[in-house]
């Protein structure tokens, strides 16, 4: 776990803004966070959940429809073999980066402010990865043969192609999902024990009890627990960077102009953090509005810090966009130049999807610049607006990369427009339904904020009389 708090020895002028405002006590934290789960289901929850689950069902119907009919119900064609499916996949997997990033990287970098948002962000990660996982699953022509992807010894004596970026994807995404679940669940155990101990109904007691695994907060357990958490954070950090790198390999290792770009891994990772944080804020800000009791835990400081990260990563992404253009120009390769300057920017030629490029540019590069202004970073409306732009922009980034590059590649004879079908659109909308439904269920049944970690960053958590201890963790 992080270094001991240093409040005592820190000079007054350097003292940090408290992470939990209003000097809340542990019981207060427990009560407030648990109350979300324990209180009667609020009306707004049903109002939110029912449409979301309905949309999710529509999405599931579309998936079933697509599987039973064939990929042809989408709008893809001989030239544009991937479109919304992989765009959505990369979009969701990108969003799925924020949670683990907050839990792992910010943990390793001792960013204590992460404690109040990491749980929700991790949950969001999982749900986003669930949504992401749907698309590569269903985009294949023969879903029922997808087990060929698994390296199982078989009577055919044939193995998957370990050189294929798509197989790397299978490994990366499934590993990422698995490790994220483990990480998330490990973090949940002490809080589940809290709920277990507070639960009134027998069913809840049993259910929380089962999943709390009999946690009793003993120091002999905490000792290993903290080490495990540290190790998982240490493992997740390269993992989270690798996942989007591997996803970017799908494109970077190909030869399609606009895909074949060496800067993709860092560019994709930055984009993923960017989009992920925007989505975290998109979810957290309304949640905070609905649960005013969380005000002291999720503070303006959090929003401010996350906005700063959005600004940083947005600028990295913008830089990557410019680098791409420069590389295309400097390569002198007419196919590359065409893809970037004509197909994407629409300069001097039919850029079929140039509008998407400019939507992307505005949303991802221009709109976050607002966060240079401090007042904007703490203005929830402004933050929410920018985050919505970023969500849209990041989807378009993937759309631009995938569809624009494919639609107009080497042989002009094969250039082909693409437009989505209703099935594609509703499948994508449906994943939002799945995502939000899962998140609402999570809010309803699991502690949205990691109570034990928040308690840990309160001043009381520090054994005052022990000034400084060796940082063995």
């Amino acid at each position: 776990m992080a270094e001991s708090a240093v409040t005592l020895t820190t000079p007054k002028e350097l003292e940090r803004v408290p992470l939990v405002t209003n000097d809340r006590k542990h019981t207060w934290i427990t009560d407030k966070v648990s109350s979300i789960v324990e209180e009667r289901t609020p009306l707004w929850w049903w109002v939110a959940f029912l449409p979301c689950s309905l949309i999710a069902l529509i999405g599931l119907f579309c998936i079933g429809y697509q599987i039973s009919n064939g990929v042809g119900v989408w709008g893809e064609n001989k030239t544009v073999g991937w479109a919304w499916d992989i765009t959505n996949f990369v979009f969701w997997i990108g969003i799925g980066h924020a949670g683990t990033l907050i839990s792992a990287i910010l943990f390793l970098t001792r960013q204590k402010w992460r404690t109040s948002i990491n749980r929700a962000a991790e949950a969001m990660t999982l749900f986003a990865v669930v949504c992401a996982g749907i698309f590569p699953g269903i985009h294949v022509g023969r879903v029922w043969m997808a087990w060929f992807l698994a390296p199982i010894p078989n009577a055919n004596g044939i193995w998957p192609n370990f050189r294929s970026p798509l197989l790397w994807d299978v490994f990366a995404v499934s590993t990422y999902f698995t490790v994220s679940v483990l990480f998330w669940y490990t973090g949940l155990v002490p809080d589940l024990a809290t709920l277990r101990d507070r639960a009134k109904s027998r069913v809840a007691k049993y259910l929380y009890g089962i999943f709390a695994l009999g946690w009793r907060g003993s120091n002999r357990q905490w000792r290993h627990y903290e080490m495990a958490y540290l190790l998982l954070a240490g493992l997740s950090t390269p993992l989270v960077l690798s996942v989007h790198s591997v996803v970017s390999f799908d494109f970077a290792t190909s030869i399609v102009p606009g895909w074949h770009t060496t800067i993709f891994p860092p560019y994709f990772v930055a984009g993923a953090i960017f989009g992920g944080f925007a989505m975290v804020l998109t979810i957290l800000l309304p949640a905070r509005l609905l649960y005013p009791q969380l005000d002291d835990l999720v503070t303006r400081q959090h929003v401010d810090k996350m906005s700063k990260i959005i600004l940083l990563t947005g600028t990295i992404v913008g830089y990557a966009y410019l680098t791409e253009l420069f590389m295309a120009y400097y390569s002198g390769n007419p196919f590359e130049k065409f893809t970037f300057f004509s197909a994407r920017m629409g300069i001097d030629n039919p850029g079929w999807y140039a509008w998407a490029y400019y939507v992307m540019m505005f949303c991802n590069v221009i709109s976050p610049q607002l966060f240079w202004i401090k007042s904007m970073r703490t203005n929830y409306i402004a933050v929410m607006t920018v985050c919505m732009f970023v969500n849209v922009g990041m989807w378009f980034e993937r759309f631009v990369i995938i569809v624009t590059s494919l639609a107009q590649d080497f042989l002009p004879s094969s250039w082909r427009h693409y437009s989505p079908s209703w099935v594609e659109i509703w499948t994508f909308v449906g994943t939002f339904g799945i995502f939000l439904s899962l998140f609402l269920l999570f809010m309803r049944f699991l502690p949205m904020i990691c109570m034990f970690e928040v308690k840990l960053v309160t001043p009381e958590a520090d054994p005052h009389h022990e000034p400084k201890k060796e940082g063995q963790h």
Partner: protein
Amino acid sequence: MAEYRKIYGLGAQFESAAALMKAAEKIRDAGFSKWDVHTPFPVHGMDKAMGLGKSWLSTPVLIGGAIGTLTATLLTFIPSWGIYPMIVHGKPFNWATLPAFFPIMFELTVLFSAFTTVFALLIMNQLPKWYHPVFNWERFSRVTDDGFFIVVEARDAKFSETKTRALLEEVGGSHVTLIHD
């Protein structure tokens, strides 16, 4: 609770993490070994206060990770180089094809490590253990809220119901209670 029950140990509650830490040091100094402190969150420095060393969880994780790397190496190389080499994109069958396998080697390393971490954690913490005598103590449910406890087990050689109760009260424990199994 009418019938006779085996004694598990003595529990005491403390006000704060700081108080607990001090008390723990004393219990440690008193030479107890089968005892534990229970806190709502990890209290830093408690390991030392209890006389415990660094967690050795990282060792199995290292081994697990190494097995992961090895598995991935074999998994990728044996089919692609050994039992079913196929001409794919004009790429070689030999060691030069290694870079293509890095992603899978990396992912499996992480996967195996993570699984080892979690399973080793469960084993080392003896979890899941849904029944535990301390749960018989009503007050103990506050351990997941704001309660700080020390529980000295009866199987400790130095355990004596009266002396230990006195010691716990002496180090600042309140609600000292006999916990039955």
